[in-house]
């Protein structure tokens, strides 16, 4: 991006050149659109691209900041552990992706395409893991399957410290993330397709593979991309339960925290960025083939009862819920046990955080504040960004570039993003350094960190709205922003509220992105969990995790009640 790309910022072009003529022809609303795209684009540039550039720069410097070329890379690729770590990371990420996507698709199918009972309850249950920091399932698994675990016999002598533990904990942790995308993809479909298939006597299998899967394929691929990158970039789970099974994310941690070797941390971070490129390519490829499912004439889909299918999926959803609740329940129980495993009496002693950490309870209030800001500010920016990418009329290159930037955060591990922020914002010569060590930088970092999934969710929702709405409103001379507020925002209200909740709970639970960015006044609850587990205060860590979960549940329930009232008013059109 240079000044020359910005229309009006340069007077170099002679009057009457084609480009300028095109610009002159732009209507006022196009200018508003351009300003909007540029503003959000600039924000992503400043809070994502430039910090990452600072990271890149760090990777070719030595500890003193002198340029050393690719020596760090050479050193890293020559080290013994690398190939193992890369192999381990890919293996774990691939297996977790396959397992979690299969489970999440089946679950989402049950929720959207069957007449099984308790759908609302299952959906609420399945989102529970998102309410917990990623360290929680790992902590819980140690209580379940560790050497003092209550049901360690189930592992038949295998150790939970290693790939098995990482995978189980990861499936738990990413399940809601993946399921959320699957449900969005499966819930908006045109019933007329199924009616036609029915009228033609098509067999269910064929319907599934020719209508259901193709209709949801964009969501499925998004979900796979998300599952893969979330797994490969998470460091909380392997840190707690990985044992000697090294992965790239823990390698970064070791380099930066263990050895204070920032340049090497930057190198590993860059290695981890490679999946981002692949994710982006896959995403773009599938996206091009996606067509709008929900045309202006679409008819909402309502499943018909089918005993065998409904019962089968009901059983599956029950089993899945038992798994999810079991993990959470164990952590909850362990948090009340006075001294595991020698004093099993129940007490609140582990909840006395100020006893073990001077910022114990205050970190919790900081988290509330941070999560609130992140949800409100984040959803506004993300919706506008997704709207411009999907529904914008002009500037296709700029919009494409913006979408590319919006995809990047998914593959940037929190530790790397946090580190990049430190390199970029701590420099006194940077005018943005005034934000360093403030609550604002935590909010910005969190929004950026969770940008992609929110962006993709919003995009999936927007994609399913027919472009005819724009054509009609533009022929009626209604400016785009009015259509946006009157049509897109109401239709996307479910997605908007989902994204708000997603941002809130992730802000409550995120650790890695903010661990280098907090200051005395802004320490967060999830960081307290990390610290407590790190020194071995596992029960207290479980307790603080439960406080986070309880908060998110409360906020979610309140939000659900609010939404129900809103839905009744705004979504009446969805019913036939």
């Amino acid at each position: 991006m240079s000044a020359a790309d910005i229309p009006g910022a340069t007077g170099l072009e002679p009057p009457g050149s084609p480009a300028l003529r095109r610009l002159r022809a732009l209507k006022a609303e196009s200018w508003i659109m351009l300003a909007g795209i540029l503003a959000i684009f600039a924000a992503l540039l400043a809070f994502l691209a430039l910090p990452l550039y600072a990271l890149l720069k760090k990777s070719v410097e030595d500890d003193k900041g002198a340029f050393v070329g690719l020596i760090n890379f050479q050193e890293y690729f020559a080290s013994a552990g690398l190939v193992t770590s890369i192999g381990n990371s890919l293996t774990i990420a691939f297996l977790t992706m396959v397992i979690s996507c299969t489970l999440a698709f089946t679950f989402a199918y049950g929720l959207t395409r069957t007449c099984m009972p308790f759908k609302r309850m299952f959906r609420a249950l399945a989102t529970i893991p998102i309410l917990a920091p990623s360290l929680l399932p790992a902590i819980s698994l140690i209580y379940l399957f560790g050497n003092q675990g209550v049901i360690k016999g189930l592992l038949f002598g295998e150790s939970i410290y290693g790939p098995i533990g990482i995978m189980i904990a990861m499936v738990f942790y990413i399940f809601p993330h993946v399921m959320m995308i699957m449900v969005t993809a499966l819930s908006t479909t045109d019933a007329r397709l199924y009616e036609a298939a029915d009228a033609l006597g098509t067999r269910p299998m064929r319907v599934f593979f020719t209508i259901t899967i193709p209709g949801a394929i964009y969501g499925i691929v998004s979900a796979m991309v998300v599952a893969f990158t979330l797994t490969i970039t998470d460091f909380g789970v392997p840190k707690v339960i990985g044992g000697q099974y090294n992965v790239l994310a823990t390698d970064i941690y070791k380099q930066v925290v263990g050895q204070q070797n920032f340049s090497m941390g930057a190198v590993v971070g860059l290695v981890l960025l490679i999946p981002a490129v692949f994710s982006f390519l896959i995403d773009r490829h599938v996206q091009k083939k996606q067509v709008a499912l929900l045309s202006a004439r679409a008819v909402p889909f309502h499943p018909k009862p089918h005993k065998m299918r409904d019962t089968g999926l009901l059983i599956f959803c029950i089993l899945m819920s038992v798994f999810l609740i079991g993990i959470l329940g164990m952590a909850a129980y362990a948090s009340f046990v006075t001294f595991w495993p020698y004093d099993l009496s129940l007490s609140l002693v582990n909840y006395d955080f100020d006893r073990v950490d001077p910022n114990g309870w205050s970190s919790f209030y900081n988290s509330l504040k941070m999560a609130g800001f992140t949800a409100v500010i984040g959803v506004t920016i993300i919706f506008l960004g997704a709207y411009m990418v999907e529904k914008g009329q002009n500037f296709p290159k700029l919009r494409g570039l913006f979408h590319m930037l919006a995809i990047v955060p998914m593959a940037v591990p929190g530790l790397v993003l946090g580190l990049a922020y430190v390199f970029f914002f701590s420099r006194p010569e940077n005018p943005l350094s005034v934000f360093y060590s403030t609550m604002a930088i935590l909010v910005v970092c969190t929004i950026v960190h969770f940008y992609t999934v929110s962006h993709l969710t919003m995009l999936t929702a927007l994609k399913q709205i027919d472009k005819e709405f724009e054509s009609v409103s533009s022929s009626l001379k209604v400016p785009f922003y009015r259509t946006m507020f009157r049509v897109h925002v109401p239709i996307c209200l479910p997605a908007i509220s989902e994204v708000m909740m997603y941002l809130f709970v992730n802000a409550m639970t995120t650790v890695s992105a903010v661990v280098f960015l907090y200051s005395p006044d802004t320490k967060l609850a999830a960081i307290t969990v990390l610290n407590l587990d790190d020194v071995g205060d596992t029960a207290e860590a479980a307790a603080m995790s439960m406080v986070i979960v309880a908060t998110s549940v409360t906020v979610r329930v309140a939000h659900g009640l609010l939404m129900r009232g809103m839905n009744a008013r705004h979504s009446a059109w969805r019913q036939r």
Partner: protein
Amino acid sequence: MKSGFLKRLSLSVFGAVLAGSLLTGAANSQELIVYTAVEPEELSGFAKAFEADYPGIKIKWVRDSTGIMTAKLLAEGKNTKADIVWGLAATSLLLLKDAGILEPYAPKGVEKLNKLFVDGDNPPSWVGQRAWIASICVNTAEAKAKNLPIPSSWADLTKPVYKGYIVMPNPASSGTGYLDVSSWIQMWGEDKAWKFMDGLHENIGIYTHSGSKPCKMAGKGEFPIGVSFAYKGAQLKAKGAPVLTVAPSEGVGWELESFGLVKGAKNAAAAKKLADWSVTRETNVIYNEAYAVVAYPGVAKPVKFFPPDIGKKMIKNDFLWAAKNRKRILAEWTKRYDSKSAPKKK
């Protein structure tokens, strides 16, 4: 990239979006920001004692593990908010000194301290407060249940009977872990030390990322034996965990909790007061409540549940040597033990 236009634009967008209320912060001038790695449960006691002596100053702790705190300070560099670094490993302070972050200062009365505990330069950049000492935490209940003899030396830990029962901190992620490895090499020389570690590795259940975790794991019986430090074992025992703290007969590595002033600190005067306070005899008596070896000679009394005579087993520790050879030793350690991926079955 950084055209003035973009900068202005991003700034104004940022400013508009985030209201001023978000910018928590300009610290109160009475508030002394202290970066520390001291165990969290001790902090409020230290703050109370100091604030009682200097009522005008309020300590604001920023606490994290040694590794994170060191990384944080190095990353923040001269832009750090810290006024003073207090209770951080001496080897970390050596790195900070190297990076030019520390302000040399001789606290009033520093000359009374044990010379081994203070930076050799005059005025010193860092001053040691008390030593934390490597030890083995053994869960006596689990040892009995599993028929394990109580180890009394490092060499004992390589016996096959302990296979899969030992945890130790990974030296690549934990300062305590490195302190162990460096002490073995300093005691026995490279060859013998690596041979010992080869044997030890065979018995390791897992390597942890922090130095206190092995002891806490031992306390909970997750792994019956943890290579950790004495303070943690004694503290767990005091809380009622079945933990015996053993100081191996060959000698034990140790590291110093130390402080150093930050260059260009906002509250430099208050930081100096904390530095002065930290070297007094009275303060050393407080240090001694939890740690057996402190910088002020003649103060230390035996601490309950500490291995007896642990002070005499402390090796002659060369911090500079340990710091200089760290990179090489960690590379070798990682090559030997960290790239073996499979977790061991018991």
